[in-house]
């Protein structure tokens, strides 16, 4: 397969569904910790810290998911509080660049992500059907984003980083 993956900031999202597909989205979010753990299981620290073409290492990709979880939860509160705009993301990702995630063990990173994601899922399980369809404007996309769309966006973002991790692992096999 010679196909290149679409870059995150070039991704187009289809938020047109009028159906409640939130249970499936929640199920995707639940699955990410196990997928990350399986992927990084039995990979040496050399590969986990590897920065291909000066981009984030596997540990930094996991760390980035940790760094963003409070933003996702903050946006949940923005929607529930009926804010016009969702809070902005740090588009430069300074938090991840400065966190030095490579200095931590992968087990530590995975445990933190699992714990944060479990809290997110627990909170999402309490949302009512009405709350799932509440919305606010996305600050970068300038389009209305319902609670359901927001967490579909998060699930897609998880997948983006899982694919990025795959590419790093493949690169390490080729080098």
């Amino acid at each position, binding site marked *: 397969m010679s196909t290149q993956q*679409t870059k995150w900031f070039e991704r187009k999202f289809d938020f047109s569904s009028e159906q409640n597909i939130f249970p499936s989205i929640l199920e995707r979010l639940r699955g990410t910790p*196990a997928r990350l753990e399986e992927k990084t299981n039995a990979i040496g620290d050399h590969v986990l810290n590897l920065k291909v073409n000066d981009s984030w290492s596997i540990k930094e990709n996991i760390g980035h998911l940790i760094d963003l979880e409070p933003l996702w939860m903050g946006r949940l509160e923005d929607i529930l509080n009926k804010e016009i705009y969702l809070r902005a993301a740090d588009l430069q990702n300074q938090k991840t660049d400065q966190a030095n995630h490579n200095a931590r063990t992968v087990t530590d990173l995975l445990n933190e992500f699992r714990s944060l994601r479990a809290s997110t899922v627990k909170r999402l399980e309490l949302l009512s059907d009405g709350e799932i369809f509440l919305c606010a404007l996305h600050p970068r996309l300038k389009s209305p984003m319902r609670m359901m769309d927001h967490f579909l966006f998060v699930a897609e973002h998880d997948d983006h980083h899982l694919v990025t991790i795959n590419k790093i692992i493949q690169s390490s096999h080729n080098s």
Partner: protein
Amino acid sequence: MALPWFERNLRFGYSPEMLPFFLERLEGTMIRLGQKVKGIDNKVLSSRLNDKWSVKENIGHLAEVDEVANKRIDEIISGVIVMSPAVFEPQDYNPWPVEKVIDFFKKNRLSNLAKYKTLSNEQLKKSSLHPRLKVQMTPVDLAWFDAEHDDHHLVKINEILQLTHSK
């Protein structure tokens, strides 16, 4: 509660650049299923609540669907006009150990993943008609469709496990 699968409105037309994400999801299902059934009593995994499919039957169904998907990929590539129909009622997987049902699913899933990875950009743009939905689907659309279908059954499995815990 999961929306009935046949009531889902699905949109297709995904570009080949989206395939890596869909393959990642398809691969992840094996791990998610393994995690879900870990430590769960065999009786729970085999029980049919309200005469609905058991956990094992949901997993076995995914394995059977993958056999159809494998055939459908070949059909799209060879220019067949209408793809093969879907499968519905699964065989009785309840007497099987859950590990065997998961291994059956993994075997089929790994075969499909390997097949998707051999496809060229040109092949990824070919399409055939889906027999029920009456829409043209490329291999990329098919991968997305199956990833969504996996999630639907993972939700179903969750519902069964939650119901048995609350009893």
